[in-house]
């Protein structure tokens, strides 16, 4: 069937088998292979994309369900020559090894930081009504849907904290950069 998918702010007209998952539409029909297929069952998070700003497992969605939605993939976050702060932080902290789960980790972290900023509680949030702080436990709980068999978790956690600090409203970018240079 004919559908239009809005991916990374570009509309794409497609003719798809209705059984096509959003992930396969991206990978096989739009050549956006940054979203990875690790399990095709919503169990690993490698296929994470943003739909209208919210993170989802694109392998668990049919492409035809997302006509009219704003879909953001890793390709829309940053290119090798123009990386986002989070992508740069993953490189600095070696938040990957083989790189296969990496786009999903970055997309998931992007969505997760928005959820925290909006005050969404998680399974480990003590006070469901109050503000949400991005503690180590909160970060790990909220990222636990993204598996990494190389087990680069320490680097991923460090990268997300690093980028979150840089992204914080009113953050002193100069002192962050100075600290970073000193650390290296």
């Amino acid at each position, binding site marked *: 069937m004919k559908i239009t998918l809005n991916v990374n702010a570009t509309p794409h007209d497609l003719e798809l088998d209705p059984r096509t998952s959003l992930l396969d539409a991206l990978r096989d029909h739009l050549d956006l292979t940054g979203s*990875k297929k690790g399990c095709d069952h919503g169990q690993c998070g490698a296929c994470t994309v943003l739909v209208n700003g919210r993170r989802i497992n694109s392998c668990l969605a049919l492409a035809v369900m997302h006509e009219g939605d704003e879909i953001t*993939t890793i390709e829309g976050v940053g290119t090798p020559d123009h990386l986002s702060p989070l992508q740069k932080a993953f490189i600095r902290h070696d938040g990957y090894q083989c790189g296969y789960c990496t786009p999903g980790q970055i997309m998931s972290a992007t969505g997760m930081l928005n959820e925290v900023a909006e005050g969404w509680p998680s399974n480990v949030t003590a006070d469901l009504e109050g503000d949400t702080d991005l503690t180590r436990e909160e970060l790990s709980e909220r990222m636990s849907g993204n598996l990494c068999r190389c*087990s680069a978790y320490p680097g991923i956690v460090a990268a997300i904290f690093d980028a979150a600090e840089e992204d914080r409203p009113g953050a002193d970018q100069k002192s962050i950069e100075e600290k970073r240079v000193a650390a290296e």
Partner: protein
Amino acid sequence: MTEHLKMDKVQPRMLDETGQGAITVPMDRPEGRLKVAGQATYAAEYKAENMAYGVLVRATITKGQVTSIDEGSVTSLPGVLGVFATGKMPRSPAQGTAGAAPIQPEGRVDYFGQPIAVIVAESFEQARHAASNLKIAYEAETAETDPETASEIDVPDGQLLDQGDIEAAMSDAAFTVDATYTTPPHNSAAMEPHASLAEWHGDNLVLHGAYQMLKFNREELADSLGIDPEKVRIHSPYVGGGFGGKLGISQEAIAAAVAARELKRPVRVVMARQQVFEMTMRRTESRQRVRLAADKDGKITGLAHEDRVSNLPEEGFSEPTAVASHFLYGGENRFFRQEVARIHRTTAGSVRAPGEAIGQLALECAMDELAEKTGIDPVQLRIQNIPEKHPESGLPFSSNSLAQCLTDGAERFGWSERKGVGKRREGEWFVGMGVASAARTNILMESRARVTLNPDGTALVETDMTDIGTGTYAILGQIAAEMLGLPTEKVTVELGDTNLPGASGSGGSWGAASAGSSVFLGAKAIRSKIAKSLGCAPEELRLKDGIATGANNRRPLAELMSGPISEEGHIEPGTTMEEFAQSGFGAHFCEVGVNAVTGEVRVRRMLAVFAAGRILNEKTARSQGHGGMIWGIGSALTEAIEHDPRDGRIVNHDFAEYHMPVHLDVPDLDVMFVEELDDHSNPLQSKGIGELGLSGAGAAVANAIYNACGVRVRDYPATPDKIFPHLPE
């Protein structure tokens, strides 16, 4: 020209002299920009014009014969192009470094989930649908699937050793441990499923695959298809994790190649995650009996390590659980024996640190039990039993810094704060600390690489070596940069293509040492040519930042070169591997909380200290350490393949049910490297690190559980049901 070195004698420590400052430093991975932007291209991401999609169909019996495949049940479905590969389909992937076709059983079934055929269609959705509809008839036979009751048991000669008198040692000892440990099967579970795109150009095959050892994989694929290896090219520049699971050619590659040949169009076959669990290698389950005999001072006088593992009939591999037990600790009376039960479960093969990974879960737990009995601190007990030389062969160690790993680690971790068993309680948590030694045999393999230096001060490294996440792109570039006196960003590394010089491949923790040595040798040959142009002896030459200095001469490279200089490096293992016992060593320290209400274990912090010779990149080496430690957490606490007792099938064949560690299972980890150079290992003085981090890690977790709450789990993984009933009031 080829610079060849057979590692027969100690080589000069050239990387200490070169002075560029490119080696060891924690350089970011050069391919990182592509990976974080989703632009690194993995096997399933190549496309070919007119490509068709294949889906594998699996056996739904455990043992027997396929009597018919009803192709008519699917050929009328939309888009279906055919059913292929039934005759060539291998039973199992090739074992690591096989270099020959795996068994192609022609319709015989030996385990539940074995691939039978591939269905190819115009689209993935069509092929997947057809695969679920293919009717296969079988003549089923009774199958043995339980290693404990199997009637066919092999005792491999290579795993037998009887030195001194272990029975006498046990009966004369002041202290003994005689304990049996069991470990479950594991899956490598790399995040990228096995995937191949096969394209024929006349008689020549190009395969975009996800493989660890291309030189061997090419031979395996060609042999499986009955063609000349020269006609096969395998391309794997990025591999989404391996961990042993992609050592040998596997079924999807052969299926894609056969189907593509018959259809005369490119075919891509990607395994579903469930198929990765069922068809590719699993780590065997094991039952291990460890006996330790010690005198009144805690000196070990006898050590025995016996096991039962399993594999399919006719598979040559059996996991050597006792591999490091042969040399970690002394004791003159020693006994080793392995039994391999021939059963019909998914093929057993190499999963990260085959042998050490589960052998040290047993031995290092037994050492903790011996420490408890003798009343000697577990760190001290280990240190005092480190042998001067290999306790069986009598060979000297090439280097053995285990004592320093234990001592430095104990100090850094705050081991002296460790309390007695069950003595530290924080709210509803019992808290305890554990320690374990790590050892992983060090190996050098034949490897080749071509290094090209250009007059503009750039260089190119080319080899069919792979980077499966291990950091190969980084370290090979660093070695070339260090040797050629160039900034690392001036060196480009091309990997993963069998058109390039054949490397060791990634496996056995030998990749960095072997492929790295070949790059070192190629660059060394280039240095000789530069020295000649400059008019100095090679040993006088200094190369730094594109400037050559020597014999009172100082010239930019461009002035010394009339064109690019290209040299091949070729390393081969030699007598240093026979004359020295070589191993990486380490020590793991772990603090856990055991919940007094639920029996749940949480790892609170962990430290590993590694002695692995020269560290080639501190950043990627640290990540390898982290990876191993986290695998250790998984093997200690959660990971287990469950086989259905009725038919041997894997019932938890996906990530929801096979529990690998996730973010919340992993606390802050600390890694330290001991300064060490191993002169006998290779010209880089390095040792393998990819598997060392896993060896012993899980035992440190289990020993911490015992220290926390007094429950000794000998049946891994230590899930709450094995702890909770035994908790103190």
